[in-house]
């Protein structure tokens, strides 16, 4: 690896905003943060990155990516998913466990971590709460936590059984007590209400003749987990909240002092169920796209801190599977490469707050603030991205690094583009091109 100097940019990190150059040495650590850095003093093998007019920020952290490996490599692999992440400015991502086989044992965890070692970004993996994600027996969380797994979720489904969820929470607390700070994350969907639904139940599902999932199918599980969290003392992280009701429930719980965290995806603050009118299954996702009021509530949730972070729920699916009839197609959309641009374009929040949602907060929730999402200071590992906040571009799915093409933003004009991404000192993306 060569040394790097990022020159001419404005730094925005949890400690504030300042104009400074950043120097990174071949070990991957930041060695200087000063107004003007002369690269001559750094040896012959130095790469200078011109970042004039740009902003440097800690690399983004995604708490919700589907990397499809093992099992569905035709849709994405850990490596191709990590390339998408790097192009989107992410330096760390959390893989979801709904692979084939599910990530519910040390053996599969090891396999994923090995595959992730060669990636462009840091790949962390979650583990399933229940065996096979079937919802009837607890998975060996301790064994997986010993390998570094910090987040447990059955994502793809929620844990339906109340008693089992309570036990999972109590057990997780026990692991915390042994110095393994595990976090339970929930995909909130009450199947008895949502079952058979393929989009939001409402005006559009009625018009299109498609069975719907009512907002309450998500809210009922949010309510349950808040109650169980209060009962057991566990901390729950709510994944991909999508309804105004869910946001309000979390808001009230936080106001009442209950520790919990929440994320929402880019598609849930940019798209509504009206998109389904084309019957294009690119717009089919779980939880589904909802109403304009729900979109407004999500945005308000970011602004007032109810929702802690943006997650992508990057969910690749082959073109053929997404061409199936709407009610037969698998749910999910791509997201890693477009998240930052959509957040900057649509959220109307100060840029530092946007980076907080994309990087600093998720790093804290994942427990990796020591290496990601922290202040840009001498001695810290160099996990950074360089963003041109004024660059206008149009989303073109054909130009994606993903193996899949289910991108709902084709043709959309956005502002804000990642120019470079540095992971542990290695420039994995330069001028918008992945270096490997």
């Amino acid at each position: 690896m060569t040394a790097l100097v990022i020159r001419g940019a404005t730094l925005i990190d949890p400690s504030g905003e300042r104009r400074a150059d950043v120097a990174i040495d071949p070990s991957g650590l930041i060695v200087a943060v000063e107004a003007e850095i002369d690269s001559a003093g750094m040896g012959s093998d130095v790469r200078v990155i011109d970042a004039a007019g740009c902003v440097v920020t800690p690399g983004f952290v995604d708490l919700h990516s589907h990397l499809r490996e093992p099992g569905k490599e035709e849709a994405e692999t850990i490596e191709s998913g990590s390339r998408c992440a790097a192009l989107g400015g992410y330096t760390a991502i959390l893989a979801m466990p709904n692979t084939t086989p599910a990530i519910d044992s040390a053996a599969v965890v090891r396999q994923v971590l090995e595959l992730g070692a060669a990636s462009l970004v840091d790949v962390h993996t979650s583990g399933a709460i229940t065996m096979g994600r079937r919802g009837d027996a607890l998975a060996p969380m301790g064994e997986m936590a010993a390998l570094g797994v910090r987040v447990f979720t059955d994502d793809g489904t929620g844990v339906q059984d109340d008693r089992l969820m309570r036990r999972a929470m109590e057990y997780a607390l026990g692991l915390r007590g042994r110095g393994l700070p595990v976090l339970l994350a929930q995909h909130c969907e009450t199947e008895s209400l949502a079952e058979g639904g393929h989009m939001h139940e409402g005006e559009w599902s009625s018009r299109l003749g498609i069975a719907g999932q009512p907002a309450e199918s998500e809210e009922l599980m949010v309510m349950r987990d808040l109650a169980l969290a209060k009962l057991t003392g566990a901390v729950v992280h709510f994944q991909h909240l999508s309804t105004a009701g869910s946001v309000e429930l979390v808001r009230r719980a936080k106001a009442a002092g209950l520790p919990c965290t929440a994320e929402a995806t880019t598609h849930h603050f940019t798209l509504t169920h009206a998109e389904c009118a084309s019957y294009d299954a690119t717009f089919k996702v779980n939880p589904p796209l909802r109403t304009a009021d729900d979109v407004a509530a999500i945005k308000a949730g970011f602004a007032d801190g109810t929702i802690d972070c943006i997650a992508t729920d990057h969910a690749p699916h082959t073109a053929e599977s997404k061409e199936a009839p709407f009610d037969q197609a698998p749910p999910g959309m791509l997201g890693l490469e477009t998240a930052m641009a959509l957040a900057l374009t649509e959220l109307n929040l100060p840029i530092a707050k946007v980076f907080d949602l994309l990087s600093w907060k998720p790093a804290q929730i994942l427990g990796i603030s020591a290496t990601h999402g922290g202040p840009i200071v001498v001695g810290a590992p160099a996990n950074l991205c360089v963003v041109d906040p004024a660059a206008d571009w149009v989303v073109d799915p054909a130009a994606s690094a993903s193996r899949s093409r289910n991108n709902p933003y084709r043709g959309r004009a956005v502002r804000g583009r990642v120019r470079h991404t540095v992971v542990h000192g290695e420039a994995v993306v330069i001028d918008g091109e992945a270096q490997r």
Partner: protein
Amino acid sequence: MKHLLAIADLGADEIHDLLDLTDSFVEVNERPIPKVPALRGKTIVSLFFEDSTRTRLSFETAAKRLSADTMTFSVGTSSVKKGESVRDTIETIEAMGIHAVIVRHASSGVPLQISRWVQGASVINGGDGWHEHPTQALLDAFTIRQRLGSLEGRHIAIVGDVKHSRVARSDALAFTKLGAHVTLVAPPTLLPPSLVGWPVDVSHDLDDILPKLDVCYLLRMQHERMTEALVPSLREYTSLFGLTSERADRLRDDALIMHPGPMNRGVEIAGEVTDRPNVVVIDQVRNGVAVRMAVLYTLLGGQPDPERPDPAPSRPTPIRLNPETATA
């Protein structure tokens, strides 16, 4: 008009044009030789992913009476069962050289998806999931027009499982576009969760509305609905919403009783009622062929005139052979 996918896409004018054209095809069907060469050389395929003998036969008869060649592709005997995707299926069929395809599928939206994949063929929706069944609505509207003169101002009730009914959706749209007043009659569990944007009234009381109706349109009540906890039992459904003899007596004599078929005698309609003169189910079926002929003729016809011509053919003035002022 390239495709016929939904009544929602049609304006009142377009519906009227199709119904006017249907009159001509009713006449053709009454000829000793009910066949015209208009679509000779055209190939029309029925692509039925969901079984339906009646609709398929109706379309095939329509195509044959227009002298088109027909092909049937039904899922039970085809490669679709072997896992071929809908897209591959339609692209294979189109490669054989077809001009129109009639699609029926259990999933809403498939005809629209197919219309995006075809290279030049016209797509006709033969019924998609719970969404629409446009030719059914056209033949229903035509039958009402034929019997009552016009739909303007008529009060039509659509009774039964509206939630799962593509016929109900298409009918409600078509009837209201033609000026009728539509009321959906069903228990709340059999209505769509949201009726925002539907130009209809709703009632849970069939008895209350019967004497006011010009048309009572009954939907099939399927046995599966019981297992989904949508109604307690078929018996209860019939006692509250079925067209029993007593209820049929309270309809006006000139009110029409309609049904898309096949009828569940004893459930949504009493056996005895089906024999009454104001039950026009046979007319619906007969008109179905003429309506489908009109649809095929329109879709496979010439390029649309950029300036839409005056729709009514000009009536030439009669020649007066013995005018008062002239001598023969």
